[in-house]
């Protein structure tokens, strides 16, 4: 069973990697977006799904990654790789500086503090000269969608492997312990502050890398689009819909929801946004533990699965 699943995953990954070689341009461009969103969902999964700290501000890391690449390439004429490293550095510094105080907050307070942070970043960056203020920066174009697609896929694979490593490492167990009972984890000898900040930084690194790839691909960025707060909506919904705190859930959630929303957006753009909202409302009521849990238990329960979920949390 385990071997079968591993083989299936390898086949799926190979198929995904082959898309740019036989798919149309539109499909490849959709693929890059979907893969980068999957990276964001997977990155959120580390802090939100495993450590249990529902960050509503991971878009900040994405924006920092984008600006890291843009500033390095446009202002300092450095290569793309150095820009990515610079973006990662910005994200890690942010995670350490703001993570330390903000991660002391719990529950609602943490969620709102991160939401507030994500709302002010655009205003702050639009006043920084080196970041092009509110006009933004134009990057040197590189017309190679195939490369960007494979980069995004590689990044998603790295993020997923990292999450898989969480499920079997001391660090990951520490995070799960924090999620389930933070005082308990501390009593058992988990350095909760260190673990939480590391998880926040790790989650930020993947988001920043995704932002960097996106910036170079789109070749233009301004504060509003780089620190787009609706990205938080998407990454959280995708991770939760697929199954937060599971290895493959966020990937499946991101790819499936991206596909549906792309189909809807081809009709009317705002319908896609509406769809995201409705999905999350329905998912919280009917399948709060995501697709992963539903797949596992639907066979045993049938339709009663949904009723049980409602019964567990209704007044």
């Amino acid at each position, binding site marked *: 069973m385990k071997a079968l699943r591993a083989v299936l995953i390898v086949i799926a990954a190979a198929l995904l990697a082959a898309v740019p070689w036989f798919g149309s341009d539109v499909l490849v461009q959709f693929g890059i977006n979907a893969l980068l969103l999957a990276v964001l969902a997977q990155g959120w999964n580390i802090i939100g799904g495993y450590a249990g700290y*529902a960050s509503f501000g991971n878009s900040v890391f994405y924006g920092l990654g984008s600006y890291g690449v843009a500033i390095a390439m446009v202002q300092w004429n450095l290569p793309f790789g150095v820009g990515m490293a610079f973006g990662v550095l910005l994200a890690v510094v942010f995670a350490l500086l703001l993570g330390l105080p903000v991660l002391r907050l719990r529950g*609602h307070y943490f969620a*709102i503090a991160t*939401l507030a942070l994500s*709302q002010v970043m655009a205003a702050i960056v639009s006043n920084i000269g080196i970041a092009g203020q509110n006009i933004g920066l134009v990057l040197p174009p590189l017309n190679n969608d195939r490369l960007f697609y494979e980069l995004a896929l590689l990044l998603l694979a790295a993020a997923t492997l990292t999450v898989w490593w969480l499920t079997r490492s001391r660090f990951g167990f520490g995070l799960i312990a924090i999620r389930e009972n933070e005082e308990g984890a501390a009593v058992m000898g988990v350095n909760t502050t260190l673990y939480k900040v590391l998880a926040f930084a790790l989650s930020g690194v993947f988001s920043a890398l995704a932002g960097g790839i996106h910036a170079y691909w789109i070749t233009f960025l301004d504060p509003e689009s780089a620190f787009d707060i609706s990205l938080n909506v998407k990454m*959280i919904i995708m991770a939760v819909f697929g199954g937060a705190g599971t290895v493959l859930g966020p990937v499946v959630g991101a790819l499936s929801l991206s596909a549906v929303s792309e189909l809807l957006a081809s009709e009317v753009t*705002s319908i896609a946004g509406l769809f995201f*909202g409705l999905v999350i409302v329905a998912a*919280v009521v009917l399948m709060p533990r995501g697709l992963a849990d539903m797949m596992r238990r639907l066979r045993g329960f049938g339709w009663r699965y949904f009723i049980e979920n409602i019964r567990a949390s*209704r007044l």
Partner: protein
Amino acid sequence: MELLAQILANGILLGGLYAVMALGLALVWGVLNIVNLAHGAFIMLGAYASWHLYTYLGIDPFLGLPLTALLLFALGYALQRGLLNLVVRAPMFNTLLITFGLEVVLTYLAQLAFSADFRTINPPYAGSNVQFGGVVLPLVRLAAFGVAIVLTVGMWLFLLHTRLGRAIRATAQNLLAARLYGVEPRHLYAVTFGLGLALAGAAGGLYGTVSQINPYIGASLTAKSFAIAIIGGLDNPLGVIVGGLFLGIVESLTTLYIGPTFADVASFGILVLVLIVRPSGLLGRTA
């Protein structure tokens, strides 16, 4: 000096409006333990309701407030009864998520129904001013401030002295005990959420008279309401007046001395600071 007085006056007038915005959020949070991330979106709906009443039926925005509040109350009652009661006992993150989803739904519905154009409610007296010393007070803002204070104090008296208000406070303190005394929680939760939205609706109607409306104003209004509720604490409706005034004054001063783009930075910066230093609120009891 006169400029400073004018800025302070602007901040205070704005702060009254902020207080009503936050009041509904604080009420729902304190009683139901739901942080309603769609609160700003409901303020936006209230503003649009008021705009439609004025534009198509010619109802004065201030006289139309009870109607707007009633509409939002009905919506809130139905939402809590039909949807939110289903997840009230779920982990905190799930209730955050579902209201987050509602926010998205409402924003996009508003965009579809009302278009993304800016709207303003402009009654004939919109340009009138009151001179007070050297300070100019726009009549509309003054009226909005007055209504806001009446609503907030009225809410406080209602919670203290009426049977329903006492039931709401009892439920906030101890649901089980309240149940034993004959409170029907499903109904009471729905009434509380409805009241929260009625306040949001009234706040939206007032907001529409002093500022521009579009479908996207919700998210930042939610964050501001939250900041005010945090600063004022959840225990006492009068706390949100202090929180609202504080935020209004800080925003006005920031706009003048640092720049208009930094008004939001200042208010959210304060929010984060207050959260870190004193999560129970500047005026609230320690948790």
